[in-house]
């Protein structure tokens, strides 16, 4: 796929506080999740690639063009900032139309676009209330609306799901996914794993101002496959099951969990392990309650990389 955003040795510090250090990467169309703990440099990265701040070292281009002070380009970009701030004395409607005006649309276009955007985030009913009186969720949605109203090709969301309830969150996730289908390039930052997992497999892990990994979640998993994998099995007779595994060379470690019916098995060949599993259950008639991989989610990748 075509590279949309490209950064080279991007570094940024505030005074003597490090913001981002030596980030070189390429981002393609589709949804890319930017993941990292609080203060990792996610916001700095997003601000740098949207040209809001200038890097101390390095450069950043979108579609081959430099972005800072290249304001024409912003018609293609939507940005949803992290901070919960607005022109509080305006109504939602005025806020939206006012910002859309800056895109040089005609009044009728602006009206239509605002209407559509507010409909999407379900703020139509409250459009004439002042923003000051909006609840947390409404504010978050309004922020979302101003980022998508002008139908940009590249949308950057900085923590878009903060402060939303599960239902609101589900809606926003669905929306963001729908933009992917339209072939847009979307960057979403978050520190909450399930949120990103629900949206995309393409992730960039940022921690301590550095990019720790970029790529498919599974690709990253493979990358660290040297790291042994733990599978937890809850069953009626764990010791019997354990005895069948003890001969296998791909099993590194067998561990009995704190509850007496759990078995923790560490393996370095998951494919072999998992393909054998069902037949073993059938063969020894082991009644299984649960099979889980405690570290087979983004969290584990994350913890692993951060600790490394």
């Amino acid at each position: 796929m075509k590279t949309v955003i490209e950064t080279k040795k991007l570094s940024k510090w505030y005074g003597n506080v490090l913001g981002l250090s030596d980030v070189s990467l390429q981002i393609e169309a589709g949804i890319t999740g930017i993941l990292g703990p609080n203060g990792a440099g996610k916001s700095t990265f997003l601000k740098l690639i949207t040209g809001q701040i200038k890097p101390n070292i390095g450069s950043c281009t979108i579609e081959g063009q430099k972005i800072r002070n290249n304001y024409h380009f912003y018609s293609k970009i939507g940005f949803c900032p992290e901070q919960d701030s607005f022109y509080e004395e305006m109504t939602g409607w005025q806020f939206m139309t006012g910002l859309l005006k800056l895109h040089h649309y005609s009044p009728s276009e602006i009206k239509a676009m605002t209407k559509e955007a507010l409909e999407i985030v379900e703020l139509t009913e409250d459009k004439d209330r002042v923003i000051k009186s909006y609840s947390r969720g409404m504010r978050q949605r309004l922020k979302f609306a101003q980022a998508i109203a002008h139908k940009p090709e590249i949308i950057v969301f900085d923590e878009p799901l903060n402060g939303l309830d599960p239902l609101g969150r589900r809606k926003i996730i669905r929306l963001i996914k729908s933009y992917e289908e339209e072939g847009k390039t979307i960057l979403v930052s978050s520190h909450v794993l399930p949120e990103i997992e629900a949206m995309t497999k393409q992730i960039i892990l940022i921690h301590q101002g550095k990019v720790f990994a970029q790529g498919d979640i599974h690709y990253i998993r493979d990358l660290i496959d040297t790291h042994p994998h733990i599978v937890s099995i809850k069953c009626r007779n764990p010791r019997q099951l354990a005895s069948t595994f003890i001969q296998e060379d791909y099993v590194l470690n067998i561990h009995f969990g704190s509850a007496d019916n759990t078995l923790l098995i560490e393996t370095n060949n998951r494919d072999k392990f998992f393909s054998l599993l069902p037949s073993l259950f059938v063969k020894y008639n082991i009644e299984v309650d649960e099979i889980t991989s405690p570290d087979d989610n983004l969290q584990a990748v994350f913890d692993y990389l951060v600790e490394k």
Partner: protein
Amino acid sequence: MNKITVRRLLFLWNSIRKVYSFFFFMGKKSNKTKIFFIVALLPVIMALIIKLNPIFSGRSSTEGIYIFSNVIIVFYLQALILLLALFFGTSVCSEEVEGKTLTYLTTRPVSKSAIILGKYAAYTSLVILMTGIGVTISFLILNVNKLHDFSLYEILIRDVIVLSLGIMCYTALFTFVGTFLKKSILFGFVFGFGWENVIQYFPGSTQRFSIVHYLKSLLPVPKTGRFSFLMFKLEPSTPVAAVFMLFLITGIFLGLACLFFSLKDYIFED
């Protein structure tokens, strides 16, 4: 001029207009503007009292236009427009950074200069409007019995123009200050109520380093005597030079403000 330059300028102009309308509208609605509007209308109350007093006290009143030129206008010139320009000028940039709303503007297809110039224009016209309304009402009240005398309107128009020039110039200065100083207000006080006043006592060309000098050069030289505390010694420049200088100062500060705003990183913090 080649075509590209023309197109760029046209685009800049359009951007400025858009930013202008956004902030003019917002400024109009803001509560702070309302308070400052009341401040700008204080001279109206003053005019009313002056006008009504002779009716109750039975004493003959002073000439309306005399009061207007020597009190109301000078009051605006030396105090009110400074305060208004100080607040609105520093607001142009500080407001966005303090309120963390800058992001909404800088991620739009308008240049940073357009943001500064548009917002500056919006706030300047708001202040001019507020002041203009205040001045006009005061004028009408003070000259209520002479409204047929058209020569008076010339004075009104001249004074409003001078005040507008002043607002334009001061707001530009404070806009610039707001883009690069955090404690812009303190600087504003020192400049507006310290420097601008003190420097008028200095002889020779020193006073040409103040803005108020050029503004006063555009007004008729007052007779010494009453109200002298409001007017200081003046060695006027010619009107043409004064207007030129005012525009020059405005231009320079706006240019600097745009430059700073385009180059500086604004980091939001509490």
